[in-house]
């Protein structure tokens, strides 16, 4: 971890401390990232204090890392500076929830689980199952935009977001979108922030479209002789149009991880009206001998994908091309699964090397897709971290929103 | 072209143009827009040009008029239009208001075209003389020689005209008076013989008489009838169109019939609009209106009669080209399908976009051969895709164009008016 402006931080810390409500400062030891601790840590209790901290940091050239549940900090390149940790945990209110509008506006530090409990009282939920679990914060799940098992069957965060409020390094707060479910007023900056790893500001608040909580759900599993047969079965299942919420092909080791028999398996979750589930289960029975499986299987996989101690990669290729990648991962001793609809192949690599990851990446690209490292040791991420896309545009945008690279410095690479 | 503007009594009305809300729903229905992708060759664009000329905002230069001229007047846009813009009559009015300028102001091609129409189609003797020469050319065996040896070296446009000439080997249909009077006929109808098609496609008339007789009608053809005037109206020669309309009204009134039967969709559409054509003429407006209500397309009329009895088998796989002036102008789509559906042995394979123009459009195929060919090409592809061996039409212009298309694109199908196929079935039913 490179050093930063910490030399001057002693005096600055007092300036920061004086600028916000008393009791906002936190012990820096709790905010270790990739082995580095920040010069100071704060948990602002209101938006004004957050804005003040970010503005002062920007003025003084400090590198700020906003954080929530700290579950996806091994995503992106290692930081190029880390002076100030800003914990969003103090901003955790639900701002507005109108069940009949199917919309909810929440602060970035609110935990997904707490929000789900609140929505559940009205028979609704935010259909998002990002790794590792519902401890994630709203800001975190937006900034990282990691898809879960429901992706491809239900809309993802980037589809569900209706509006956003973001704190800029200059201290100003800007909004885009709104609180209505259909809106084309102005540019969709909220989509720009989704998955941007904080490059254009600190997410303060977001509005989502929520969904009715399904009347029932049911998890089924069917065994296959090999991954080729399992993938073919999953594709047939997808084509049969049952009320799917998840459809995943598991390698033997992934099946074991999920608490199932160690064999190639197709794991299915049906969700919706009871009658629709029954009908779908009947339809599926005519395709393959599906049997009921414990719903806990999903949670185990989700936790494993989100375990930042492991090296986890996610590739995206055409659904019909996923088998090639999954077989390779399996043969290399990895634990992997494919979420069929989005063509997402997730792998937990046992002995990760940059060469192994690059080789998988070129295979994914050869198949017309991509590969992203979701978590890995810092040293590895220095070599194989994702590119931000068209660097000319991203840099031009970053220049305008965070010219000094105050927020998450270096996450997208040296100049970003 | 200074001084040219819309003049006269036919200037497109503000109310007609006001119905257009610029929504663009007409674009994908327009064959010339589909062929070019250009707003200039679309109904919305043409209405905008016409409105601009009307308001004096746009000059009717030869370039402007070329865009109006490229319109097939197929009126498919009227079917697509959600706000009922009467496009066909706006276009006719626009052309008439250009042709109402002093002759030396009129665009040269338009003037020549009107001159030719006035002096050929409206004069049966001249027309027959011209066609007689053509018939001689075909009978003499010269045609087959030309097709085999000369055509390949002709310039493309000439070759196209040569190739599009119909087969004129059959004797023309020129009978008038009483054509059929079956015992116990309850209905008396008159038939329009038309200017060209009795000469070109006599079998269509014969078949029409057969079908009407089979449906229990007495059929007459008033000898004083003339060309319907549709092509003159389309070309902006409203004066000749009106003169022809008056003569026809007079001729058919004298016949005292229940209905005036037309087997050419373009003629029928025009005759159903005589009321509108003569609306400014105090002496004729009411008579024309009454006449128009009696005009029926032969398919429309026959489908309403008791025609399905005693039909014999006809072994044909057919596809149906909806004539623009039947489907769009007269809004008749069911009748041809009902008739074909009633014929034993006939299989109807519908083509894609059967109501899209074939590019014939009256004189269009001669005046705008290039665009006509571009419009014809997808039509022939749609026909070929049906594997039908007979293309059914309801208009002689379409028959001519599609016959031409079968030769040019090597599609193995013959072309028949729906009524000809019905007549075949009637004949087959009469055989023991």
């Amino acid at each position: 971890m490179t050093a930063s402006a910490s030399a001057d931080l002693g005096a600055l810390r007092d300036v920061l401390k004086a600028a916000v409500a008393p009791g906002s400062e936190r012990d820096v030891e709790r905010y270790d990232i990739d082995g580095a601790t920040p010069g100071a840590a704060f948990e602002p209790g209101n938006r004004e204090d957050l804005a003040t901290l970010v503005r002062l940091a920007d003025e003084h050239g400090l590198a700020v890392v906003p954080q929530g549940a700290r579950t996806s900090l091994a995503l992106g390149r290692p930081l190029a500076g880390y002076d100030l940790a800003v914990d969003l945990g103090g901003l955790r209110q639900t701002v507005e929830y109108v069940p009949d509008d199917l919309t909810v506006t929440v602060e970035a530090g609110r935990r997904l689980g707490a929000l789900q409990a609140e929505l559940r009282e009205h028979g609704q939920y935010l259909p998002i199952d990002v790794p590792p679990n519902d401890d994630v914060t709203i800001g975190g799940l937006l900034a990282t935009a990691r898809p879960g098992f429901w992706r491809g069957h239900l809309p993802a965060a980037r589809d569900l977001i209706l509006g956003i409020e973001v704190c800029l390094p200059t201290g100003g707060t800007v909004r885009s979108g709104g609180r209505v479910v259909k809106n084309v007023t102005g540019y969709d900056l909220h989509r720009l922030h989704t998955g941007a790893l904080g490059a254009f500001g600190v997410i303060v608040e977001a509005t989502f479209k929520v969904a009715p909580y399904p009347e029932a759900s049911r998890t089924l599993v069917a065994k296959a002789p090999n991954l080729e047969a399992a993938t073919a079965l999953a594709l047939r299942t997808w084509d049969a149009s049952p009320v799917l919420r998840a459809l995943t092909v598991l390698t033997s080791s992934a099946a074991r991880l999920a608490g199932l028999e160690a064999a190639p398996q197709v794991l299915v979750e049906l969700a919706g009206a009871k009658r629709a589930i029954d009908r779908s289960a009947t339809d599926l029975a005519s395709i393959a001998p599906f049997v009921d499986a414990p719903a806990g299987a999903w949670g185990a996989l989700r936790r494993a994908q989100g375990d930042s101690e492991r090296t986890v990669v996610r590739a995206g290729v055409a659904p019909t091309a996923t088998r090639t990648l999954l077989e390779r991962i399996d043969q290399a001793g990895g634990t992997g699964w494919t979420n069929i609809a989005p063509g997402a192949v997730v792998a937990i690599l046992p002995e990760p090397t940059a060469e192994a990851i690059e080789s998988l990446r070129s295979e994914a690209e050869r198949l017309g897709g991509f590969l992203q490292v979701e978590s890995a040791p810092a040293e590895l991420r220095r070599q194989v971290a994702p590119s931000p896309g068209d660097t000319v545009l991203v840099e031009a945008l970053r220049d305008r929103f965070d010219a000094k690279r105050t927020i998450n410095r270096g996450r997208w690479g040296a100049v970003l | 072209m200074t001084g040219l503007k819309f003049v006269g009594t036919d200037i497109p009305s503000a109310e007609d143009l006001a119905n257009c809300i610029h929504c663009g729903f007409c674009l994908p229905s327009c064959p010339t827009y589909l062929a070019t992708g250009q707003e200039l060759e679309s109904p919305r664009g043409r209405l905008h040009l016409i409105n601009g000329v009307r308001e004096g905002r746009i000059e009717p230069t030869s370039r402007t008029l070329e865009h109006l001229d490229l319109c097939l007047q197929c009126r498919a846009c009227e079917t697509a239009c959600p706000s009922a813009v009467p496009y066909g009559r706006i276009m006719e009015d626009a052309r008439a208001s250009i042709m109402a300028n002093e002759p030396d102001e009129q665009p040269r091609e338009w003037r020549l075209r009107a001159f030719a129409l006035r002096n050929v189609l409206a004069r049966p003797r001249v027309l027959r003389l011209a066609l007689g020469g053509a018939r001689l050319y075909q009978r003499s065996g010269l045609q087959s020689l030309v097709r085999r040896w000369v055509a390949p070296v002709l310039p493309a446009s000439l070759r196209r005209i040569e190739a599009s000439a119909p087969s004129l080997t059959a004797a023309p249909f020129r009978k008038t008076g009483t054509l059929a009077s079956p015992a116990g006929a309850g209905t008396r109808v008159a038939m329009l013989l038309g200017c060209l098609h009795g000469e070109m496609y006599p079998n269509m008339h014969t078949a029409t008489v057969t079908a009407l007789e089979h449906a229990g009608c007495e059929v007459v053809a008033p000898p004083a009838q003339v060309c319907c005037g549709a092509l003159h109206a389309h070309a902006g020669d409203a004066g000749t169109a009106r003169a022809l309309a008056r003569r026809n009204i007079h001729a058919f009134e004298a016949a005292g019939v229940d209905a005036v039967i037309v087997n050419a969709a373009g003629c029928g559409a025009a005759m159903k609009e005589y009321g509108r054509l003569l609306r400014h003429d105090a002496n004729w407006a009411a008579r024309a209106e009454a006449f128009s209500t009696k005009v029926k397309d032969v398919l429309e009329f026959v489908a309403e009669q008791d025609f399905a009895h005693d039909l014999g088998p006809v072994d044909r796989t057919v596809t149906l080209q909806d004539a623009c002036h039947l489907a769009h102008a007269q809004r008749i789509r069911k009748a041809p399908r009902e008739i074909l559906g009633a014929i034993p042995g006939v299989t109807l394979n519908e083509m894609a976009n059967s109501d899209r123009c074939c590019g014939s459009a009256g004189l269009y195929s001669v005046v705008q051969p290039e665009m006509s060919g571009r419009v014809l090409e997808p039509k022939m592809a749609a026909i070929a895709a049906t594997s039908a061996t007979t293309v059914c039409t309801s208009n002689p212009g379409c028959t001519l164009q599609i016959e031409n298309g079968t030769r040019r694109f090597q599609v193995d199908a013959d072309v028949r008016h729906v009524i000809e196929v019905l007549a075949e079935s009637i004949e087959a039913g009469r055989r023991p």
Partner: protein
Amino acid sequence: MPTNDTGPTNDPGSLIRELQEALGASNVLHEPEDLVVYEYDATIERSLPDVVVFPATAEDVAAAVRLAVKYDLPVVPRGSGTGLSGGAVPIKGGILIVMTRMNRILEIDADNRVAVVQPGVINLHLQNALAEYGLLYAPDPSSQRVCTIGGNIANNSGGPHTLAHGSTVNHILGLEVVLPDGRIVRLGGRVPDAPGVDLRGLFVGSEGTLGIVTEATLRLVRQAPATRTLLAIFDSVAAASEAVSTVIRRGVIPVAMEMLDQEIIRIVEPRIHAGYPLDAGAVLLIEVEGVPDGVAADSAVVEQACRDTGAREVRSADEAEERERLWEGRKAAIGAIGGAAPAFYLLDGVVPRTKLPEVMTQVLELCREYGFACGNVFHAGDGNLHPNIMFDPTIPGATERVLELGGAIMRACVDAGGSVTGEHGIGLEKRSYMEWVFSEADLDAQRSVREAFGPADRFNPCKVLPGGHGCASGHASEVMQHLGAGSYV
């Protein structure tokens, strides 16, 4: 960024020559009589381009853009010209790039539910091509039989089925675009959730101000195994609105919930004969889809919710042809108004669904106050209003007052927590309303985005954002003098 040594030049003759060399002479229009039909879209806005080009490839588009840079001219993209906010009107002239020649469906990968198309493909043509695979592209704007996919992307278009499927942005996987500097770049990919900044999501709905789409990779969905359309007849808009909320409250999200009010029913029914009772206060068209048993369960909930909120009759249809008949009145509504009134102003506003009854009451009161008839046909499930104000533009002052009334209705939507456009876009029409929705800082952030892509006066200037160099105040009032009868404002 391409450089030019000589700096901007102004010789129109050499611009046209260079465009002709780059794109072919027949793909460049510049005569006044030709340009005049490219001065409009489906609004009343009018402004002539300097030159119109018809590219066939991304390279053609890039070449035209580079020439625009060289000659310092604006660039405006155009599809079928069916926009309802003036987005394709070249308000400051320049090069109008018409995408209609790029109308090929490049690939349908049915197994992976992906299609790759050129931007000039007409939405319905794509749907027809997909039907044989049992697939569909979910966004279905009411103008789908003519509007292009490129235009849909520019406007993030919606449609009746947005309620369940989402707007265009939810169905775009990847884009190839030409940027204001002439670079050709790819955003997104063939599968969702590519790593990196989601420039794809930002680009969709940017109304041609950030770049021109030259190819799009679309996410397709499988046609549902079963679909049922219900028509519920109510005595009032309030009761029908209550039914909409009740359906949602009971946990069912239909794929579409469309409302027609009495004024519209009375215009549509005599023309279309869709079977809507003339004395009904409102009708709701509701569609549910899914597996057959699920459809049965959901439609039972829908029907009960309608009856509980006072529906006097609920009809339903399962067969495609019958369902089509129920939809006919809805689909023909806007056009029918065109035939019924000399002119009308079609508005697009959006409010939280629960505010529907109260805002609808306000809309009708405002129309009464201003003395105009108003018919409403809209996406009730989304809270997306479409009041149609009917008027006679030949009456002096009528148009001004209609525009004022439109503004008052938009204000009411914003005050209710909604916004000024749900699917038609900001374009020229609503630039001045942006300040009602966003603060100056919010708008500055949007200006920053625009500048990151290129100079603000290059691509579709004076659209979306208020202000701008040499842009007029930003309302249709600028062109009111051109209003003729029949305007579809």
